[in-house]
């Protein structure tokens, strides 16, 4: 898919074939457009998306925190409300017993008929009472009203009796007792005027309590039940088993307040557990109210919101990346086209400079050859004169001398043309071992006459330790030709031009061309390698000599620098690698292989 988009975006720089790369490479300002393009997309994308992602993460965490605390708050509220109901349930029944012992005379209470009547009234008022009994301080049941025959039963060793001796009221854990029916015992203690005491005890069915609890249960993901303080279930739990089973959750530590915590149960479900220790007005109870809410079930809204946020962020990221990619491609394409146009102009100028060099060569050759030709012409003419005018040619030494003179002039022409052929042939050859000294002299041949006429002092110093360098001789000649021409134009008659070579480590050679001519102001030094920059009069300089020289040096994997002081002279330093091949391996495109 990414390839499809890329192909639609048209990366213009990939259209460059190897020939064009070789031709334009040295003149392109940027070499790796793919890198610029990728870097542009990355930096712009990072700048645009990073704030978005940071804000989204912060917002996400904020919402999550508030959702969590909302869940805890809701669970706490439900726990608290249910606790009030359970407490009220127990208080109401304890108060009824307390009222009964306070208001009904002891003798009435111990009379079974009267006690049965009281039980019927209490059942009518509150419901859920199974039986009622009066037990004296020795633990003997004095009176009993209810479905069983328990009168005279001894409770002195029963845990509830022992516990109730010390307290005014008592609420038992849920137990099955003699009848194997889960129930709770509640009891109140009353002291008589003779100092002895008795207990009024009632058995409550828990059905009514369970009904009350389940009426507070909200939704599929909530569970509401009672445990005792050792963690045993006192009412059935939907999630964690039946009555009397051990709750597979950590039993909460005592707290007088309602609490809610986030935790994980044995099935690794995230839950919010609310708990409250139930206390009646006059006594503690063994009950702990537990409210469990499964977090996943409550998260529906939050999950939908999360999905919306993800979609939104994903859409934003995609849009930003698409827009940035299109913009970057467009900008880099434009940059590339501008750079390519510049490079094409430079390459064209290099060609025209080559033509100019050939033109200059021709002019030099014409001058050099014209002199011997003039001599040939005059000598031959003189011989003809001798024949025509003087008529004395036999055994004439002057004649022989003049013919020698002709031969010598022809030889001179031959030498010039062979040098010329040698020079032009070198343009065709690419990489080869080049003797620097010979190359410099080859170039200077065309300047020697001018130097003589202008009384210029030319000196060349290439020490013996300078090795042959592997490079393109034609291009090196063109570089030297351009720099020497430049120097000749900069110096007045009688000045001097010095060309010398030095080694730069084992891999590089410096060619230093310095003159003591007019020099350049410092502000121009930065611009001289820019195309079309010239200090010469209009029409005299093209402003292309040095930029082309620069391009050629780059093509040979070298570098060029300049130092100049006004009225003191200029020095150009060309640094070239001894072995162009080494560079070529790593940078095949710029050389063109």
């Amino acid at each position, binding site marked *: 898919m990414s390839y499809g988009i890329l192909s639609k975006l048209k990366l213009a720089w990939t259209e460059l074939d190897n020939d064009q790369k070789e031709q334009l490479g040295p003149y392109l300002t940027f070499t790796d457009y793919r890198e610029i393009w990728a870097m542009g997309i990355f930096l712009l994308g990072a700048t645009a998306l990073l704030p978005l992602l940071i804000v989204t993460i912060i917002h996400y965490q904020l919402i999550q925190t508030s959702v969590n605390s909302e869940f805890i708050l809701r669970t706490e509220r439900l726990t608290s409300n249910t606790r009030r109901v359970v407490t009220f349930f127990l208080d109401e029944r304890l108060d009824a017993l307390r009222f009964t012992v306070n208001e009904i005379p002891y003798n009435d209470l111990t009379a079974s008929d009267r006690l049965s009547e009281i039980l019927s009234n209490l059942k009518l008022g509150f419901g859920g009472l199974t039986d009622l009994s009066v037990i004296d301080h020795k633990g003997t049941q004095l009176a009993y009203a209810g479905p069983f025959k328990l009168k005279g039963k001894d409770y002195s060793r029963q845990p509830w009796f022992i516990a109730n001796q010390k307290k005014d009221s008592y609420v038992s854990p849920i137990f099955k007792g003699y009848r194997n029916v889960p129930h709770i015992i509640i009891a109140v203690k009353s002291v008589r005027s003779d100092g002895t005491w008795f207990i009024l005890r009632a058995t409550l069915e828990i059905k009514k309590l369970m009904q009350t609890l389940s009426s507070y249960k909200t939704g599929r993901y909530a569970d509401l039940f009672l445990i005792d303080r050792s963690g045993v279930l006192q009412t059935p739990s939907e999630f964690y088993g039946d009555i009397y089973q051990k709750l597979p959750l950590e039993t909460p530590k005592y707290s007088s307040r309602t609490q809610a915590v986030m935790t994980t149960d044995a099935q690794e479900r995230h839950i919010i557990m609310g708990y409250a220790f139930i206390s009646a007005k006059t006594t503690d109870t063994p009950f702990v109210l537990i409210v469990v809410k499964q977090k996943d079930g409550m998260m529906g809204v939050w999950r939908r919101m999360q999905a919306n946020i993800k979609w939104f962020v994903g859409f934003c990221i995609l849009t930003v990346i698409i827009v940035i990619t299109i913009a970057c491609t467009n900008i880099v394409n434009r940059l590339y086209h501008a750079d390519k146009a510049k490079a094409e102009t430079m390459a064209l100028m290099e060609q025209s400079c080559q033509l100019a060099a050939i033109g200059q060569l021709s*002019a030099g050759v*014409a*001058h*050099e*050859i*014209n*002199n011997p*030709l*003039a*001599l*040939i*012409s*005059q*000598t031959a*003419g*003189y011989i003809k*004169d001798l024949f025509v*005018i*003087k008529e004395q040619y036999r055994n004439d030494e002057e004649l022989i001398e*003049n013919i020698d*003179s002709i031969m010598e*002039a022809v030889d001179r022409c031959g030498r010039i043309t062979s040098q010329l052929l040698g020079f032009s042939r070198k343009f065709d050859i690419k990489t080869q071992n080049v003797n620097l000294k010979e190359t410099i002299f080859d170039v200077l041949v065309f300047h020697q*006459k001018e130097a*003589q*006429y202008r*009384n210029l002092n030319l000196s060349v110093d290439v020490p013996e330790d300078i090795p042959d360098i592997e490079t393109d001789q034609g291009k090196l000649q063109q570089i030297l030709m351009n720099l020497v021409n430049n120097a000749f134009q900069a110096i007045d008659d009688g000045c001097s031009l010095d060309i010398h070579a030095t080694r730069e480590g084992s891999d590089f050679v410096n060619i230093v061309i310095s003159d003591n001519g007019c020099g350049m102001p410092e502000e121009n030094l930065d611009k001289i390698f820019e195309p079309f920059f010239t200090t010469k009069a209009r029409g005299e300089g093209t402003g292309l000599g040095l930029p082309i020289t620069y391009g050629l040096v780059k093509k040979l994997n070298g570098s060029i620098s300049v130092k100049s002081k006004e009225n003191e002279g200029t020095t150009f330093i060309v640094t070239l690698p001894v072995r162009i091949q080494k560079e070529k391996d790593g940078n095949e495109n710029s050389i063109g292989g």
Partner: protein
Amino acid sequence: MKILLVDDEQKFAMMLAKRLALRNIDVDYVYTGEEALQKAQNNRYDVALLDVKMPGIGGIELKGKLKETHPDIKIVFLTGHGSKKDFEAGISEGAEYLSKPLQIEELLELLQRLKP
């Protein structure tokens, strides 16, 4: 008619001088500008044939110096450098121009024209 020939190409100067002498033209030849100025101090010349590019005093400078002492002298430049620039420089100052290699007939014709 007396002619002064100045050219640093010594054999050329000698040959041309001999050819002119064969045609009964009185010609002195020297190889440098300095020698030419010395000759001019002691002789009166009608025409000076000057090479343009010479070491030391070049043809153009020599022309100026000769004109100072011999205001009537006619100047003809001879050059192997077929450059328009040199030609224009010569013509503009009222000088003639012949390019090397030159035909003797051309030179004779020009000298005829310059004859006082």
